[in-house]
């Protein structure tokens, strides 16, 4: 059992928790993830590590309430426990040789992008962060990003806060203006990452995308998180859990990844509704 040390709501649909998991806390690096099960019969879901406090032995996770499992997780309070918590899994984000980085985060993906931005800042790189949200009330982690970014641009789709439009708009402007990033790291909805990649392509800037496919074991055993890379004219299958979650975005078959991410959408919608009804009755 893993204790919830602190819990905080970042916006109506996004929650932050700090979980007591000393072994994971000691090891986890930005870009890595954990897998948790809320209760004995629960499903296994991957969540990216949003920060650690090795002295306290805690791991920070930030999640959006999108389905039955995250709804149940959100019902757990400070002082209560979750059943299973394993990690750190995956390969940490590569930071070597990157002096000028652009972090492009979208929605709850910003929670994953934040520790990456913080790590680059700690290493002394020049950090530009572009974070986008649907609207003002979904905005999260603005202060945290401001603290670790040399330049921060906040975008909202509806213009209800800061600048209106999606994240590719300021990115394209910067690239057209001659900005010379060593690397663009994009974390967020698949469709956003696809368009960030397309926007960067004409400028030849390397792009890393952090993938978050459906997983079960997270150790390479089931192959459920597989994605296809187009590498030198060949199709290569990779497992996001052990080979990723970061990949060269130019190689990723995003359309396939988007399709695969919807494999269980009917089931998930149904399960979410059931869970919500259950809580309503209770």
């Amino acid at each position, binding site marked *: 059992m893993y204790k919830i040390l602190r819990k905080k709501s970042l916006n109506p649909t996004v929650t932050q928790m700090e979980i007591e998991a000393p072994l994971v806390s000691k090891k986890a690096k930005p870009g890595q993830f954990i897998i948790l099960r809320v209760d004995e019969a629960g499903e296994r879901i991957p969540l990216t590590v949003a920060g650690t406090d090795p002295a306290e032995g805690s791991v920070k996770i930030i999640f959006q309430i999108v389905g039955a499992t995250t709804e149940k997780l959100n019902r757990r309070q400070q002082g209560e426990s979750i059943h299973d918590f394993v990690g750190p899994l995956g390969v940490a984000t590569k930071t070597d040789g990157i002096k000028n980085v652009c972090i492009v985060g979208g929605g709850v993906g910003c929670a994953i992008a934040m520790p990456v931005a913080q790590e680059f800042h700690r290493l002394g790189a020049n950090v530009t962060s572009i974070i986008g949200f649907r609207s003002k009330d979904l905005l999260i982690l603005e202060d945290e990003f401001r603290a670790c970014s040399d330049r921060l641009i906040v975008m909202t789709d509806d213009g209800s806060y800061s600048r209106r439009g999606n994240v590719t708009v300021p990115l394209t402007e910067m690239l057209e203006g001659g900005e010379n990033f060593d690397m663009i790291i994009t974390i967020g909805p698949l469709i956003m990452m696809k368009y960030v990649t397309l926007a960067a392509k004409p400028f030849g800037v390397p792009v890393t995308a952090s993938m978050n496919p459906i997983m079960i074991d997270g150790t390479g*055993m089931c192959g459920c998180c597989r994605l296809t890379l187009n590498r030198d004219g060949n199709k290569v299958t990779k497992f996001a859990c052990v080979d990723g979650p970061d990949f060269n975005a130019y190689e990723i078959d995003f359309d396939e990844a988007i399709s695969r991410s919807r494999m269980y959408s*009917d089931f998930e919608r149904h399960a979410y509704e059931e869970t919500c009804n259950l809580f309503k009755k209770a």
Partner: protein
Amino acid sequence: MPIDPKKHEMPAQAPETRAHNFNEVALGYSEETALAEAERCLNCKTKPCVSGCPVNIQIPEFISKIKEHDFEGAYRVISKTSSLPAVCGRVCPQETQCEKECTLAKKFEPVGIGYLERFAADWHNSHAVEKAQAPESNGHRVAIVGSGPSGITCAGDLAKKGYSVTVYEALHTAGGVLVYGIPEFRLPKSIVAKEVETLKELGVHVEPNVVIGKTLTVDELFDMGFEAVFIGSGAGLPRFMNIPGESLKGVYSANEFLTRSNLMKAYEDDPQTPIMKGGKTAVVGGGNVAMDAARTALRLGAERVYIIYRRSMEELPARKEEVEHAKEEGIEFLLLCSPVEILGHNDPDDPRNAKNGFVSGIRCVKMELGEPDAGGRRSPSVIPGSEFDIPVDTVIMAIGTAPNPLIKDTTKGLEVNGHGGLIVNEDGLTTLKGVYAGGDAVTGAATVISAMGAGKTAAKAIDEYLSRKQ
């Protein structure tokens, strides 16, 4: 009394009933049947059966105990050398091991050794009240990586000798392939849980949710005070065929399909983990895992389930009994067939059609077998122009696995062979001092009992190594 030439049959659920439930297929011998079957054993002096057993169970000795109505005694004989009697009695390929060597098999059917083993183990599990006792500690600490058959065996043998043993498991439940891979209808999970409980009674600590190579490394285990490490991390990465369409929705590796159903209990009425069920399912491969996947798909409600295998029935590597059971249940075997492409729904007029990207069928070619190669296996070749399509909704790839690189990649000096399997000597010692390995992590996908044999060998070697060190 003349010897009955035939083995007493194992009672089983009727095929038409069991095809729709996840309860155990084989029901086990009654006392009467067990006594009658035990009488068939000649108790011959040469005991060829024992040499056919990877863990050297004293077979005639335990069968003699059954003859004497001493069922607990029979269990004790088995458990002297096997840590998993109730498991082996169910999943061992006895027909290629002990029963193959049985003297009786020269003229008649062999003694039903596996059935009798299961009988003794089940009798113990339902009657014994005594708990296993943890022996006095010898002060030495050993870490075991993985709680599958090799890890459990190694842990059990070492614990019985007084070692302080900790087993690290990556998943949330102990048992490895016995819980995520082998389905409930062939090996009830309560039996695995019981074996793990026995291990705990012997003083073994089981730590779930620890991935060695990630949460902790092998080097850190030594830093923590463990004096030897056994790696039984299993086979890991599933293989795919690298044919077009394998990323369509509805294509599973057998590992994923079975894990969803077994470990995550997607077969239950109101599961929290989804799985595709119903419709038509094609399983590619001919091993035990393919049979397990096919029979699971059937029980989940598939209308038709095909096994697609590129050789003929004769070469099919699965256990005979499993193949027979599968056939009785209505699994259709498409032999001398090999998939070349998985076909998907694609509605160009409506890109939002919810069916787009899901499997619609599988395209196969027919094969013929050539002359036996150097290894004696007849290699299949494609019959030109023989392409045909089968409409299916789900495809399960059960064509094997490759060893998991997580531990190798994080342990300096640990060497692997060309297939990615850890290199070990005859004692199970790897290329690192104090680090032993066994099971699928060494051999690639193999059987439960061979993994147990490797765990046993390593336990003996670890005991000798640490005794010398003192």
